[in-house]
């Protein structure tokens, strides 16, 4: 089994261990998930797919909850934080 997964967060390469969610990759990349309606930085709150604070674009698909999406090799993650 692979012991690491390489993906991109806002164009920056990052390596995460298997089992990491996209929310963890975003945190490891030093990014926040999104900007709120009034422009404030936001990150995961519930960690379980309820609050939608962690939403990011994954491989071009917007509004993905990063706390429930697992990292995959070559994934392209975009935050609007």
């Amino acid at each position, binding site marked *: 089994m692979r012991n690491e997964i390489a993906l991109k967060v806002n164009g920056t390469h990052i390596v*995460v*261990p*298997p*089992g*990491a*969610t996209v*929310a*963890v990759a975003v*945190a*490891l990349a030093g990014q*926040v*998930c999104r900007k*709120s*309606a*009034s422009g*404030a*930085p*936001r*990150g*995961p*709150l*519930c*960690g*379980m*797919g*309820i*609050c*939608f*604070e962690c*939403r990011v674009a994954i491989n071009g*698909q917007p*509004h*993905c909850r990063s*706390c*429930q*999406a*697992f990292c995959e090799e070559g994934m392209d993650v975009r935050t609007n934080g």
Partner: protein
Amino acid sequence: MASSTPDGFDVLVVGAGPAGMAAAVRAAECGICVGIVDDNAAVGGQIWRKSAEEDVTEDAKSWADCLKARQVTVLGGMHVFDQPEPGILLAESSDNRSVLHYEKLVLATGARERFLPFPGWTLPNVIGAGGLQAMVKCRLPIRGKRVVVAGTGPLLLAVAAYLKAHGAEILKICEQASWLTLLRFATSLLTQPAKIWQGIQLSQQLGGIPFLTSSWVAAAHGDKMLEAVTITSGSETETIDCDYLACGFHLVPNIELPILLGCEISDGFVQVNDLQETNVSGVFCAGEPTGIGGVELALVEGQIAGLAAASRIAEARHLFGKREGFRRFARSLQRAFRLRPELRMLAGPETIVCRCEDVMYAQLCPYTSWRSAKLQTRCGMGPCQGRVCGAATEFLFNWSLDSARPPVFPARVESLVAVRDIKQQDPQKIS
């Protein structure tokens, strides 16, 4: 043997936590066709969430093994968003959608943490207690991080112990309940040796961490990210530098789908009869949505619901006594972790209450109901559909969220078009 077509289930279970897994296993034991659908990719729900590094508990493993052995169809990573007509649920995954036909339905939708607004609670790294634990299970590095754990409920201790075991430095645990109510709660557990044992284990794991009662978070501070929290006992305050604030105010049930299906709700919980059946014939409910009671109660209720859904009434009745014992525990939980009124005063006029739409506390004050606040301020109109601010305003303003409309969870336009197509196929059946 299986009497349903591949896309239809004799018993369909929504939610693959302990209650749902137990319901699916018991129903499947009689050879009928059973499916279980969950928003998460893996079974186990929140409490048995699998960690990338460790094995799940024996209990979790044995129920998961039973699901496999009984050939229950597991539909992971799918959230149910509508019921176009009784007997049909629509679910969506990140790249697909399904039309799920059922004869009997078991709703085991679990619970989420309650969050309350206080100044700074929207800063990144202010996160739910269970939320932070879930993130760590999903490889968030926590070793050496300074964490304050605050809020209310037994989850705080379990989370603190988990984070400590993974190398976090737990600076403080702040429980808003008083020492006296906790003592009464502990006394009520004397009839439940398993709970006492869990308590003893926890207190050993938490040795050395300051545990404050009658104490809560007054504010979180930081520029772009959390840097410190102020905790208070009402009279004394203290500001502590930290990397994470793990903060949750016990649990609220996920009742949006039961409401959509027409299930009767009282005091925020789904009402069921002895067999866990709701007022909607053929729709059962088990676990936290019927009352916050923890994993043991969820397992028993799930089994009763699964057996009853499979018409094994006599076997279901054998579990009634066991359920009553765990329900007593649920009642003492509710009493012990009741929220203190001071928490209503934490939000300042400019504190965000609705995080999706950035609606501030002062904007909500003129309104007298959830509905009017929604219409006038957009509170609760964002993607979480009020799942976070609804539970907060219930406490802050005594507003009740009493209706749910489809889609009960945000869904893609293609999926909503599919609903229309289903309705057009058989318009007679749609009232």
